[in-house]
């Protein structure tokens, strides 16, 4: 169980950081005025949202070796998760960026900010407040999706519990793992609530 939990958490944290960063980049490419760049970003998002994560895992793990590209199975998991989630985060970021009042961009331009400063100081702080709810959805989905690593032969907590449940003819192991997830998600929910509070000083 502890072993499984370690897997869950390490896949979760590494993916979270990687896919957020990648997501921001993809969101900007998607918003680019250059048609080619934005089409490429759209294609990337379509491909990664368009196919099940399960298949992406299988392709990277068992498909790429056909082309002679072999990764360690943990690397495979991280890679697939990061790419997959970056597409979802990118869409959320894009929506957030587009929803910020035009006046905020205009004020930034008139005050002489360069793009980087504008996004860092003016746009993103407001975007974050606005996208917290969908972000929490996606992050919570991520922590549960980590269980998909079973397909690579890595035993996560859910799989371990399923096997135990079947062996012992009892739903207790599943209840246990359910509680573990519940605790993890409760912690995440709490973290999001804190961020929400931190941003509640203005409307």
């Amino acid at each position, binding site marked *: 169980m502890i072993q499984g939990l370690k897997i869950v958490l390490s896949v979760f944290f590494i993916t979270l950081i990687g896919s957020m960063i990648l997501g921001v980049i993809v969101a900007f490419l998607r918003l680019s005025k250059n048609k080619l760049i934005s089409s490429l970003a759209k294609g990337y998002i379509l491909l990664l949202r368009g196919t099940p994560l399960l298949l992406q895992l299988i392709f990277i793990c068992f498909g790429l070796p056909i082309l002679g590209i072999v990764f360690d199975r943990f690397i495979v998991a991280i890679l697939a998760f990061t790419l997959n989630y970056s597409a979802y985060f990118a869409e959320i970021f894009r929506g957030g960026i587009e929803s910020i009042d035009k006046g905020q961009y205009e004020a930034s331009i008139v005050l*002489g900010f360069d793009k980087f400063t504008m996004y860092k100081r003016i746009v993103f702080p*407001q975007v974050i407040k606005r996208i917290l709810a969908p972000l929490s959805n996606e992050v919570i989905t991520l922590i549960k999706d980590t269980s998909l690593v079973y397909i690579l032969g890595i035993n996560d907590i859910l799989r371990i519990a399923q096997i135990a449940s079947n062996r012992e003819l009892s739903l207790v192991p599943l209840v246990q793992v359910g509680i573990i997830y519940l605790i993890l998600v409760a912690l995440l929910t709490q973290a999001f609530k804190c961020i929400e509070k931190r941003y509640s000083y203005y409307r």
Partner: protein
Amino acid sequence: MMITVKNLNKSFKDNKVLNNISFELNQGEIGVLLGKSGAGKTTILRCINGLEEFDSGEIIIYKEITKTSKDIQKLRGKIGMVFQNFNLFPHMSVIENVIESPINVFKIKKEKAIESAKEILRLVGLEDKLNSYPCELSGGQQQRVAIARACALNPKILCFDEPTSALDPDTIKNIITIMKKLKSQGMTILIITHDVNFANEVSDKIINIKEGIVEEIKKVV
């Protein structure tokens, strides 16, 4: 000439809003745009600030000839603007709104920026609201923050879109004082207003706009 607007044309779809607008303003001059609601005044200021693409014509800032909003945006930090609806940054306190641009654009030290910001906020009568957020301010207070924020940038040219619409006569007097001081420091100022008294008192030149046309340009003495 600090600002030269030459044959500026602009339509929104088939609504021709600006029709061959031309006028100029010297350095250190204050110009006022007068005109009925919907005449096109805000659109002119937005073109000068690079916020609106225009169809034809040119806007010459000092000696820089600009024909697109991109060109103008390259003059970053040289032209300031107070918006009709303020566009304050809601997540920043009053003082943060004012110091943000000096610190980030002109790389002024934070302490110095705060000092100047406090000074200008005192001039507009907001010394007791430094740490309030825009949502906690009255309409006129928000407007004064917008004015302070634009002045703190200390640009070559400053545009005001109805800067006194939400202000009482006493406060307006303070604003006039500030504008005259800026002018004496060599700043070129362009103001939209509906307040004819205010216009006469503060300006060197009144540009009358009627349905997208320059109807009359009047020197004030």
